C-alpha cells in the first residue's frame, strides 16, 4: 500500500443537526489516488462528494467532523494533524478550486495580488518570482493577455476566465494534488470547453493529481482517469473512466448514464384546433433595462426585434448562453418586464405589455416557472398554502374542494401527500421544482414558460422532471416555451428551437435539422456540448476564430 499520493481509509464524517441529532454522512469510504492521476467523484447532491474532497485538506464544513478513518496525503494523516500543521500543507501540497470563483475572489483586490498570496503566506518564493510564475500559469491556462490580466479586478474578467484564474491561484504553490469542486458547473457550454481544456493541459504538464467533484458524467469523462460513483455517503462503484462508461454495474450509475442517452421523441398527435390560429405570436419584440433615452429606447436593450410563433400543444425551445436575453424574452411575454416595442398576441388577442394591464384571465393562461425553486417558493409558507393561493385567487376554490384539488395537483407532479404541511426548506431540490411547477398548473394555464427549470437540478432528477413535463403535456394539452442553455434538455422536449445570441434570434431550427445548423454560433454551441466519449475533448475541432468571436465579449 505504498506509492499512492492519497490514501483514504475507512473515512467517516458525522454531522450534527440543529436538534442535536448526529448523522453519519460519509460511511466508511476508502480511496486511492496515484501521483498525476485524476479521480472524479460523481453523485447527486447530498451524496458526500464535496465532503470527501475537503477532507483531503483536513477540513470539514461547519457542524461536521471526521469521526474515523484516516486521510493520508503524501504519507501524512490529515486527520491527526493540528490546525497549524494543516495550514502549512494547504496551498502547498493540497490546493482547492471552488465551484464559484466569483465568490472566492475578493472584489477589492487585484487578481495578481490574490494569486500570489499563497506564495507569500508560505514564503515559497520572492514576490517577483511569484509574479513571473503566475504569468506563466496564466499563459499555460490560455488566458488572454497573460502579462496584464493580473492587474485587473475580479469583476473585469469573464466567468470562465475567473475560473481559470482560480486554478492559477491553486497551482502557484506547486501542489501535488488539486481539488476541483464542480469548477465548470456554473459556466456556459462554450466556455466550459475552454476551461476543461486548460485544466487538462496544465495538470498533465505539471503531473498534478486531481480530485474532480461533479455531477456531470460527460464533463468527468473528458478529464478523469478513474471515476468513483457515490451515493448516500458510500462508494457504489469504482473503475477507470471507460469501464464506468461502458460496463456500469451499479443501478445508480446506469441511471446516470441513461439520463444522458437521447430519448426517442414521443409527439402528441397534432390537435387540430380553430383553423391554425397560433397560440402565441410575438412580433418584433424589443425589451430593455434602464431609464429611457431621449429617442424612447431603453438604455440597455436585452432583446432586439425577436419574433416567434407557437402553435397550440407544441413546444418551443429558446437556447443561448447566459446574457443572451432568453430569460428577458420570457419575462416580457409573461408581462413581468414590459416590452419596449413590438406586439404579443395570445389566442388571437393582443396582450398588454405590462402584467398590470392584462386581465386576470389573461394572466392565468400564461404561467412562468423560474429556475431557482428556492427563491420562487415563499420559504415561510407551507406547500398547501403555496398551491392553494392560485386556486382561490383564479378559481375561487375554497374549503374541501380546494383540499381535494391540492391533492390532485400533488398527484399530478408525483409528490406524496405528506409534503402538504411542509415548507419549501424541508424539501429536496427536485421536490421543490415540482411544487414550483404544480403552482403553475394550479392556475390551469394554456402556456407555461419554463425558465431554465432543470439547470439547478442533478442530471437524474432533471431527466425525471422532463419526463413529467412530457406526461403532463399529454394529459393536459399544454404548450411550453422552454428556456435553457442545455441543448440536450431542449432537444428532448421541443418541436422548434430558437437560438439567441446577444439579444437577437440568430437561427430557428427543428430538432431533426439540429444536426446541421447553419449559423456559426449555433454550430459552436452544438459542438460544445460534452459527449460521454472520453476522447471527445481531445478530438474536438473548433474554429479558433469563431471561439474568439463568440466567447469573449
Amino acid at each position, binding site marked *: 500500500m505504498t506509492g499512492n499520493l492519497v490514501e483514504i481509509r475507512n473515512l467517516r464524517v458525522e454531522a450534527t443537526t440543529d436538534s442535536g441529532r448526529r448523522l453519519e454522512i460519509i460511511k466508511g469510504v476508502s480511496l486511492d489516488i496515484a501521483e498525476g492521476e485524476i479521480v472524479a467523484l460523481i453523485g447527486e447532491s447530498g451524496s458526500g462528494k464535496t465532503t470527501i474532497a475537503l477532507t483531503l485538506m483536513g477540513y470539514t464544513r461547519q457542524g461536521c467532523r471526521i469521526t474515523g478513518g484516516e486521510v493520508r496525503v503524501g504519507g501524512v494523516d490529515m486527520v491527526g494533524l493540528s490546525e497549524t500543521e494543516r495550514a502549512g500543507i494547504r496551498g502547498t501540497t493540497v490546493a482547492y478550486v471552488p465551484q464559484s470563483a466569483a465568490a472566492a475572489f475578493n472584489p477589492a483586490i487585484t487578481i495578481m495580488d490574490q494569486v500570489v498570496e499563497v506564495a507569500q503566506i508560505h514564503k515559497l518564493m520572492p514576490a517577483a518570482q511569484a509574479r513571473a510564475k503566475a504569468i506563466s500559469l496564466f499563459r499555460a491556462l490560455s488566458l488572454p493577455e497573460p502579462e496584464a490580466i493580473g492587474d485587473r479586478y475580479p469583476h473585469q474578467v469573464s466567468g470562465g476566465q475567473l475560473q481559470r484564474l482560480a486554478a492559477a491561484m491553486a497551482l502557484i504553490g506547486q501542489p501535488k494534488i488539486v481539488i476541483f469542486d464542480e469548477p465548470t458547473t456554473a459556466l456556459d457550454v462554450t466556455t466550459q470547453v475552454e476551461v476543461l481544456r486548460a485544466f487538462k493541459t496544465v495538470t498533465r504538464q505539471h503531473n498534478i493529481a486531481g480530485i474532480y467533484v461533479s455531477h456531470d458524467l460527460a464533463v468527468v469523462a473528458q478529464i478523469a482517469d478513474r471515476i468513483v460513483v457515490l451515493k448516500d455517503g458510500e462508494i457504489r462503484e469504482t473503475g477507470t473512466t471507460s469501464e464506468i462508461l461502458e460496463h456500469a454495474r451499479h443501478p445508480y450509475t446506469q441511471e446516470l448514464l441513461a439520463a444522458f442517452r437521447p430519448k426517442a421523441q414521443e409527439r402528441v398527435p397534432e390537435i387540430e384546433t380553430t383553423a391554425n390560429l397560433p397560440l402565441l405570436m410575438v412580433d418584433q419584440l424589443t425589451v430593455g433595462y434602464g431609464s429611457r433615452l431621449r429617442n424612447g429606447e431603453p438604455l440597455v436593450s436585452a432583446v432586439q426585434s425577436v419574433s416567434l410563433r407557437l402553435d397550440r400543444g407544441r413546444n418551443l425551445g429558446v437556447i443561448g448562453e447566459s446574457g443572451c436575453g432568453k430569460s428577458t424574452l420570457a419575462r416580457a411575454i409573461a408581462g413581468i418586464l414590459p416590452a419596449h416595442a413590438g406586439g404579443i398576441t395570445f389566442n388571437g388577442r393582443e396582450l398588454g405589455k405590462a402584467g398590470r394591464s392584462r386581465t386576470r384571465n389573461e*394572466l392565468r393562461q400564461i404561467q412562468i416557472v423560474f429556475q431557482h425553486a428556492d427563491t420562487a417558493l415563499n420559504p415561510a409558507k407551507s406547500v398547501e398554502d403555496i398551491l392553494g393561493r392560485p386556486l382561490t385567487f383564479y378559481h375561487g376554490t375554497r374549503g374541501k374542494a380546494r383540499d381535494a384539488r391540492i391533492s390532485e395537483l400533488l398527484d399530478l407532479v408525483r409528490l406524496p401527500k*405528506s409534503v402538504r404541511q411542509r415548507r419549501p426548506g424541508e424539501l429536496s431540490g427536485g421536490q421543490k421544482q415540482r411544487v414550483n411547477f404544480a403552482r403553475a398548473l394550479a392556475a390551469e394555464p394554456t402556456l407555461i414558460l419554463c425558465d431554465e427549470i432543470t439547470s439547478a437540478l442533478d442530471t437524474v432528477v432533471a431527466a425525471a422532471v422532463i419526463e413529467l413535463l412530457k406526461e403532463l403535456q399529454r394529459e393536459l394539452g399544454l404548450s411550453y416555451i422552454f428556456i435553457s442553455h442545455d441543448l440536450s434538455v431542449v432537444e428532448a422536449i421541443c418541436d422548434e428551437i430558437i437560438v439567441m445570441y446577444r439579444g437577437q434570434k440568430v437561427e430557428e431550427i427543428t430538432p431533426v435539422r439540429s444536426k446541421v445548423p447553419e449559423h456559426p454560433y449555433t454550430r459552436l454551441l452544438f459542438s460544445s456540448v460534452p459527449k460521454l466519449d472520453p476522447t471527445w475533448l481531445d478530438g474536438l475541432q473548433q474554429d479558433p476564430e469563431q471561439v474568439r468571436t463568440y466567447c469573449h465579449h
Partner: protein
Amino acid sequence: MTTSTSSGRRGIRLGYRANPVGISALGVILLWAVVALFAPHMIPHSVGEIVDTDYFGPVSRDLWLGSDYLGRDIFSRILMGARYTLGISLAAVSIACFSGVALGMTAAVAGGWLDTMLSRFLDALNSIPSKLFGLVVVAAVGSSIPALIATLSVIYTPGAYRFARALAVNVNTMDFMVVARIRGEKLPYLIASEILPNILGPVLADLGLRFVFVVLLLSGLSFLGLGVQPPYADWGALVRENIGGLPFAAPAVLFPSLAIASLTISVNLLIDNLPRRIRDRSPE
C-alpha cells in the same frame, strides 16, 4: 416525517430550542408583567401614604426596600410604577412598530414616488433629537398618559420603518414576489401574506429592542419631570424624586434604578437568545 417525535429531547415537540439565558430573561420579564397586572393587590402600603417617620429610611422588616424622601414605602411605589413603565412603553412600542412596519413594507412593495416621499418624511422626523422632541411636545400639550404614548410612538416610528423597509426590500426581490405580482395580487396580500411571514422574526426582535429604548426614554422624560405626574410615578420618576438620597446611599434611589436595569437587560438578553426553530425534525 409527519409523525411527531416522541423522544426525550427537550423542546423537540414544539420544534424550538431555547437556551437557559433566554428562559431566565423571559422569567424576569414575566415577573414584571405579573407585577404590573396585579400591583394594586400586592402592595403592602398605599402609594401616597407616609408610613415612615424618617425619610430615606433603610431596608427594614416592615419597609422591604426602605422609604423615600417623604417617608413613603418605596417597595409599593416600585410595584405600582411598573404599571406605568410597562404599560406606557408597551402601548407606545406597539403603535410605533405596527405603523412603522406597515409603512415600511408598503414603501418597499410599492416603490416609486410613494417610497421616496415616505422615506424622506420619516427621515426628517428621525433627524429631530428624541429627548428634545419629547420636551417640546410635553411643554406644548402638557403631560398626560395619552400624550406620552403618542409622543413616544411618533419618535420610534421612523426607526421601525427603516428597519422593516430594509428587510422588505430584500424579500421583494425574490422570485416568489414576482410570481405573486404576475398572478395579479394586490398590495395588501403581498404585504401581509408574502412579505410579513418572512420578516417576522427580525421585526419581533427589533420590537423588543425598541421597547428597551422606549422604557429608557420614558424614564428619562420622567426624570426630567415631564413624564408621569405626582403622586403617581413610574420608575424614572422614582429615581428623580429620590435623587437627593444618593449621598446617603439610600435604597430609595438604588432599587428603582435596579428595576429599570433588570427589565431592559432582560428584554435585551431575551432578544439575543430567542428560541430557535429546529429545522431537522426527522424522526430518529
